[in-house]
C-alpha cells in the first residue's frame, strides 16, 4: 500500500519543523496511540515489555519551546539510529498494539528517510517512509510518503479501512506538531535563532 501527502504548517521555519520532527519526545507526544518512542541499540532484540514498564515510570522530558534546543538536538533522531515504539491504533473493529522498530536510513536537512516494521498479535507491517520539508510563503510544507506492506487481520480489511485510519493518524500528528510549534513562534526569546544554530 502507498500513502503520501503534504501537510502545511503555518508560521514556522524549516529549521523549527526539522528540529521538532527529529525529536523523539515530540513525535511520541504528537503521535496518537504512541506509548513510548526510545532509541535502542539492537533493533533485532528489543524487550518491549521492559521498555513499556520503564516508560510508565519516567516523566517525559520537556519539548520545545520549554526544552533547551541543545538538549533537543542532542536526543534527536540520528542517521543510522534505531528507535523502538509501541503504538496502538484502532483499525475498523480491531485495535492492534504494534511493537515497532524504526531505523533512520538517511537524514540530510531538509530530507529524512526511515524504514521499519511493526508487529501486533494478529497483524504486522513493513514500511519505508520519507519526508522533505519545503519552505512556503507562510510556513513549511511537509511532503511525506510511505510504502507499507501490511499483513494479517489488518491487511484483510484492505485499503478501504486503512486509508482513512492512516489519514486520521497523520492529520492528528501534524495538527499536534503545529500546535506545539506555534508556541515556539510565540516566544520572543530568540529561540528561533538558537534552533537554527543546531541544524
Amino acid at each position, binding site marked *: *500500500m502507498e500513502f503520501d501527502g503534504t501537510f502545511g504548517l503555518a508560521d514556522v521555519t524549516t529549521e523549527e519543523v526539522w528540529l521538532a520532527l527529529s525529536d523523539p519526545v515530540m513525535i511520541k507526544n504528537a503521535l496518537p496511540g504512541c506509548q513510548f518512542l526510545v532509541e535502542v541499540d539492537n533493533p533485532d532484540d528489543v524487550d518491549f515489555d521492559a521498555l513499556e514498564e520503564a516508560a510508565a515510570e519516567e516523566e517525559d522530558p520537556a519539548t520545545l519551546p520549554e526544552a533547551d534546543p541543545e538538549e533537543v538536538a542532542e536526543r534527536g533522531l540520528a542517521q543510522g539510529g534505531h528507535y523502538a515504539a509501541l503504538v496502538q491504533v484502532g483499525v475498523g473493529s480491531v485495535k492492534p498494539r504494534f511493537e515497532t522498530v524504526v531505523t533512520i536510513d538517511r537524514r540530510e536537512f531538509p530530507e529524512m528517510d526511515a524504514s521499519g516494521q511493526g508487529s501486533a*498479535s*494478529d*497483524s*504486522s507491517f513493513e514500511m519505508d517512509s520519507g519526508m522533505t520539508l519545503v519552505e512556503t510563503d507562510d510556513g513549511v510544507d511537509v511532503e511525506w510518503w510511505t510504502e507499507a*506492506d*501490511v*499483513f*494479517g*487481520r489488518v*491487511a*484483510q*480489511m*484492505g*485499503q*478501504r479501512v486503512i486509508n482513512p485510519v492512516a489519514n486520521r493518524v497523520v492529520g492528528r500528528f501534524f495538527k499536534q506538531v503545529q500546535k506545539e510549534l506555534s508556541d515556539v513562534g510565540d516566544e520572543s526569546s530568540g529561540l528561533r535563532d538558537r534552533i537554527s544554530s543546531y541544524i
Partner: protein
Amino acid sequence: MGAESESGSGVQSVDPDDVDAADILGSAIERREDPALLTGDAEYTDDIELPGMVHMTIKRSRHAHARIENIDTSEAEAMDGVIEVFTAADIEAPGNLPTGWLLDSLEQVDHPILAEDRVRYQGDALAVVVAEERYIAHDATDRIDVDYDRLGAVTEPSEALADDAPAVHDDASGNVAFDWDIGDAEKTDAAFDDADHVVDLDLENQLLIPNAMEPRAAVAEYNPSNDELAVHMTSQNPHLHRLLMSGVIDHPEHKLQVRAPDVGGGFGSKIHHYADEALVALAAKRHERPVKWTATRTETYLTDAQGRGHDTHAEMALSDDGDILGFRVDTAANLGAYLSTFAPAVPTYLYGTLLSGQYDIPAIYCSVTGAFTNVPPVDAYRGAGRPEASFVVERMIHRAAKEVGMDPAEFRRRNFVEEFPYQTQVAVEYDSGDYEKTLDRALDLLDYDELRERQEAARAEGKYVGVGLSAYIEACGLAPSELAGELGAQAGLWESGLVRFHPSGKVTAYCGTSGHGQGHDTTYAQIVANELGVDYEDVEVVEGDTDEIPQGMGTYGSRSAAVGGSALVKSSQKLVEKAKRIAAHQLEAAPEDIEFENGDFHVAGAPDRSMHIAEIATQAYLAHDMPDDMEPGLEATSFYDPDNFVFPFGLHAAVVEVDPDTGEIDIERYVAVDDVGNQINPKIVEGQIHGGVAQGIGQALYEGAEYDDNGQLVTGSMQDYTVPKAEHIPSMETDSTCTPSPVNPLGVKGVGEAGTIAAPQAVVNAVCDALDVDQIGMPMKAERVWRAANAATDGGEH
C-alpha cells in the same frame, strides 16, 4: 425487470395434499424442509451444545509464505480458562491430508494438519487452542507469538510457472503440480493448418470464494470407555469424511461416526477434508471432552477451498462457411498451496472433457498445467471445471461467429451436435440432447430478431445494448466407478439407497448423498412414494449420518438425483418385487398374475382380490404367512453405479445495456432455457437455476479473490468481496425443455450447477456485444468496462 413471457413466468408451487398420489413425481410441491429452516428449528452444527463441551480455535499464519522460526504459546497457555495449546510439535506425526484423485504426473506434496516449519498460505494452521469458553479461546489465539521468516509469495498460476517464481514446495520443481492433456494434438494442428480463419483469446477465470451461508464447523465427542468418536460437522459427504479422517487421525473407521446436521450451503466447499475438522476430533480425544470449533467468517475467507483460477489461451480454427474445424486450449490452473481432496480432477477430467460444448468439433486438444501458489487450496466449487470449460467454449464461439460474420445464434446452430449418443474428441459420450430446441425456445422468449433491430436502433441513438448467448453443457453424476478409477479417482462414484418399510406401513428412505439445501427430503420422498405407491407423507428421508446409512458417496457434482435418486428407485423396485411375491402367496395366485398399481397388488382380472403394499409390510414383519424360503421383513438396499454421466444442457441469454461513460452494466433481461431431463420437482429445479444464475452473475460482475504482492487476501470480508445481493440480480425468465436421460431409471440429468455454469459467459458475451469488443475480463467492474468501452471507441487497445 423486463417483460416476462407467459412461459417464462415461473413455476407455481403446490401443497402435496392437493396432488394425486399418482402424480407426485414431477409435481412442484412445497419443500418439506423449509418450515424448520424458516422458523429456526433447524439444527446446525454450531447449535449443538453438549455437557462439558469446550471450545477450540486455530492460530493461523499471518503470512502467505514463511518459514516458522518459533511458536511461543506460553502466554496463551497461562490464561485462565485455557486448557491446552498444541502445535505440530505436540502431536505425534501429524497426519497428512490425502488427495483423492491421482494423475500420472501428479507431484504429491505433504499437507500436514498443522504446519511444522513452513506456512504456504495466509491461514495455514499453526496451533490449536482448547479453552472453556469460545471467547477465551479466541483471545488466547491472539496471544500466541509466532516468529516468521517471510518468503516471497506468488498467487497467480501463470506467474507461479514463470522461471523466477518463488518455490511453494521444494519438491515441486517450477511449482508444477502436474502436466495433463487430452485430445489429439496432431489432428488439431492439422485442422489449424487447413483453417481459413483462426481466432484466439486470453481468458482468465478468476479465483472465487465459495461463501456458504453457514461457516464450516465441527463438534466432536469421544467416549474413552468404548473408543467411540462422533464428529458432527458441516459435510457434503459424511462417509467420505469418515474414511479420510479415520486415516488422518488414525482412528478406526468403525468407531468413528460422522454426522452432518442441517448444513447451510456448501457449493463444493464442504466436500473436502480440511485440517480443521480433524483437529477438532483430535482435541476431543486428547481431552475426553466434547469440543466445538466454528469458523469465523474471516476463517472461511482464508481457508475454505476456493474455486476456478484458470489462465487460458484458446484458439479456434474456422472455415469461411462458419464450420468449427479445430479447438486448442492451453490452461494454467491454480491449485493453491496444497492439493485439496479432489483438486487434481477439477481442472483436468472435469474441464478438458467438456471442451466440445454443444458442438461437433472434429479436432480438439487441451493441455493443462496445475500450479502450486500461495493461496488456499483450490478445489471443486459449484460446477467444478465445467464452468471453466463452458466459459472458454462460449467466449470463443462468440468471438468466432464475429470473425466469420455470422449471427452468434446461427453460428451455434450450424455447429450443434445433432445425433445422439455423440462421441466427442475429448473422451466423453453425450447421452442425449436436443440443442436446437433450447436455442429456439430461448430465441423465441427473447424475440431475438426484434431484439437485434432494437439493438441497432439503440446504437444509432448512442445506446449500447448487447445480447449474449451461452449454449452450455454440463456433465453430472460422474460414473461409472470403473471409469472414475481408470481416470485416477481414489473413490467409487456409485450411490447407496436403503428403503425400509416399517411394520405399520410407513417408510423410511436412507440415501448416501447428503443434502445441504437442495431439498432432498422432498424430492427423494416424491421418488419413493411414486415407486411404492404410498402416500408422500408416509415417506421419511434420512441422510448424512454414517451410523444410520449404508456407505455412501455424498452430494456434489449434481449427482444426487441421478445417482442417489436412482439407487432409491432400485431399492423400491426390489421391495415391490418382494411384496408382490408375498401378495401372490397370500392372495393364492401366481406372482406373474399379480398386477401392481398405485400401491395395490391385485390378481389380474380380479381387482377385488387385492392387498395394499402397506398391508403387505405388516405381513412381512408378522411373518406368519410367508412364501417358502422367504425371509421376514421388507427393506432393500441398492448400490447403484450408473453406466455413464448424464449431460444436461441449455441456452442462457443476457440482454444488457452498458453505459460507456460510467462503465455500468444493466442486465435488462436474463432468459434461461434448461433441459435437465425429467424433473422430479419443477419448483426445486427452478430454484436451483435461480441460485446458480445468481452465482454465475456474481462471477461475471462482482466476485473475485484478490491478493496483494505478498499473498495477503485483500478481499477478506463481505464488505470487500461482493457476494451478489437481491438488488444485484435481475429477474430471470426461466423455461425448460425435456430430453430424458437414457442412463438412469428416472431419466433425470442434474440441475445443481447448471445456472452457475451457464451464466458468466452469457453476461460477458452480452457486454462484449454491446461495446463491440473482443474481450473484457471478469469481474466486469465499472472501471474495466469503462476502459474497454473507451479503448474501443478510440479504436485503441483494450
